[in-house]
């Protein structure tokens, strides 16, 4: 309504000016019937109002649309009416919408091709890795030990790539179920057996075997894997234990991974969940990608878990995963 009025102010002024101009000419010519003159002005104004009303009702949706910004993309394809301007606006918006959609679709296709390629590539890389691992398993030469260590790292790197790729299609790639925490933690610790032993760090578990949480097993394993390898990395050679424990608290279940390593500087603590952020420790330890904690954070958000970090320099770090409403 306001936009309509603003749009028609010039027209209103113009019409009224025109009426009075005509009257003025008659006046100067010697015409002196005021009432008739005013009546003609009144008629003119009535006609103007009639025109404005017609105009307003035929273009109502057009003006409404112009003054209310669209809330989503689909509104661009709605019809606004049959008035010429309205159909022209519809055409314009539709064309724009189609162009945008085309570009979007192109990018989406490219992106999914890229992801598919990455997935395939990672799976292909697993075969040579398996060959190397099989070869090294049978030997007991220290050099093979060292090769095995490196392939372990490669495998972890590949896993990471796979999970980053999966994160993009997370919605199709998770299944929440009741999971026995004890069992999952146990399996993940075993997966990291070599890493623990080589770094002279030993795990301790204190989890009630009956304790369950609601989560996706695959992603939970991923989270634990990341947390454990961090814990091992930052307390390597300390001969201290990495403790994994879990306990119910009110309605939540809390899982803690605690190391007694170098800790995280206060300044970095608030930023470790950012992508590619490596911080102080990342510069000291060559292997930091700065992605581990970021990924965990993302996954936790999607699974509706919370993650907290607590750390003190040279004392160690505690990572907590909080599963709300898991305790029954």
């Amino acid at each position, binding site marked *: 309504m306001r936009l309509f009025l603003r749009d028609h102010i010039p027209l209103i002024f113009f019409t009224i000016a025109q009426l009075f101009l005509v009257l003025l000419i008659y006046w100067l010519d010697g015409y002196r019937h005021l009432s008739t003159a005013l009546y003609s002005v009144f008629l003119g104004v009535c006609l103007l109002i009639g025109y404005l009303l017609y105009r307003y009702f035929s273009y109502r949706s057009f003006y409404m649309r112009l003054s209310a910004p669209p809330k989503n993309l689909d509104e661009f394809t709605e019809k606004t009416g049959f008035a010429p301007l309205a159909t022209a606006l519809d055409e314009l918006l539709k064309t724009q919408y189609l162009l945008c959609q085309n570009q979007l679709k192109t990018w989406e296709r490219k992106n999914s091709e890229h992801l598919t390629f990455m997935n395939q590539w990672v*799976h292909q890389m697993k075969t040579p890795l398996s*060959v190397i691992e*099989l070869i090294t398993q049978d030997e007991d030469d220290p050099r093979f030990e060292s090769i095995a260590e490196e392939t372990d790292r490669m495998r972890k790197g590949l896993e990471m790539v796979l999970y980053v790729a999966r994160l993009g299609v997370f919605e199709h790639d998770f299944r929440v179920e009741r999971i026995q925490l004890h069992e999952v933690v146990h399996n993940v610790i*075993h997966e990291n057996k070599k890493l623990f032993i080589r770094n002279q760090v030993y795990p301790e578990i204190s989890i009630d075997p009956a304790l369950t949480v609601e989560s996706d097993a695959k992603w939970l394993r991923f989270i634990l894997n990341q947390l454990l390898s961090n814990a091992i990395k930052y307390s390597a050679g300390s001969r201290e234990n990495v403790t994994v424990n879990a306990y119910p608290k009110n309605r939540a279940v809390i899982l803690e991974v605690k190391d007694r390593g170098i800790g995280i500087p206060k300044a970095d603590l608030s930023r470790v969940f950012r992508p590619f952020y490596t911080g102080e420790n990342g510069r000291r330890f060559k292997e930091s990608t700065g992605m581990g904690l970021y990924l965990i954070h993302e996954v936790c958000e999607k699974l509706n878990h919370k993650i907290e970090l607590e750390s003190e320099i040279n004392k160690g770090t505690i990572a907590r995963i909080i599963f709300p409403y898991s305790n029954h």
Partner: protein
Amino acid sequence: MNKIMIVEDDTKIAELLHSHIEKYGYEATVTKDFNHVLDLFRNIMPDLVLLDVNLPSFDGYYWCRQIRSISTCPILFISARAGEMDQVMALENGADDYITKPFYYDVVMAKIRSHLRRSYGAYAPKMEERIVEQEGLILYPERMELKLGEQITTLTKKEAVLLETLLKRFPRVVSRETLLEKLWDDQSYVDDNTLNVNITRVRKKLQELGIHDAIETVRGAGYRFNVTY
């Protein structure tokens, strides 16, 4: 002599599996022609099949169904894909178990053994008891017994594992890391101290048989078994 058929398109993996399986006293056949897997199966009639999912021409699921139509022998899938869905697919297509790449020999062998046992009765005669011997000192890892001459002493699980590793590697040094890895079974995560304690116990058990100083500590490297009897 159990026959095992390996259907894996990566020749190196197939070859490595083949040689390892043969070491354990099975007869292994590697498939070369992936268009006629079923014909080969008919020819050799194996007791167990290791089947890769991603094969040229037809995938593993297809061959699994084909084999299932003529035989009920155990079929183990090998695949790089570790998704739950893939495992479900495998099992629905008639497989008995699923091994994901990268895999470990121990896991593969353990699964082969357990499936053969399940399908063909407990410890078939071909499944001879393992014996580790060094100069007359005989270790039965499955019975957890150690024998020298007429004397026999029993061992705990951990002691047996330690001694088996040391005897097998004789006369080389075994690193502490290797021993720790062997000791980490499903129940406990052994640390350095526990390893020391167990080594001491093994030495005591050896003394019971009258063997002294057989396990030598090599500074900075690990332990070595020596024949001192």
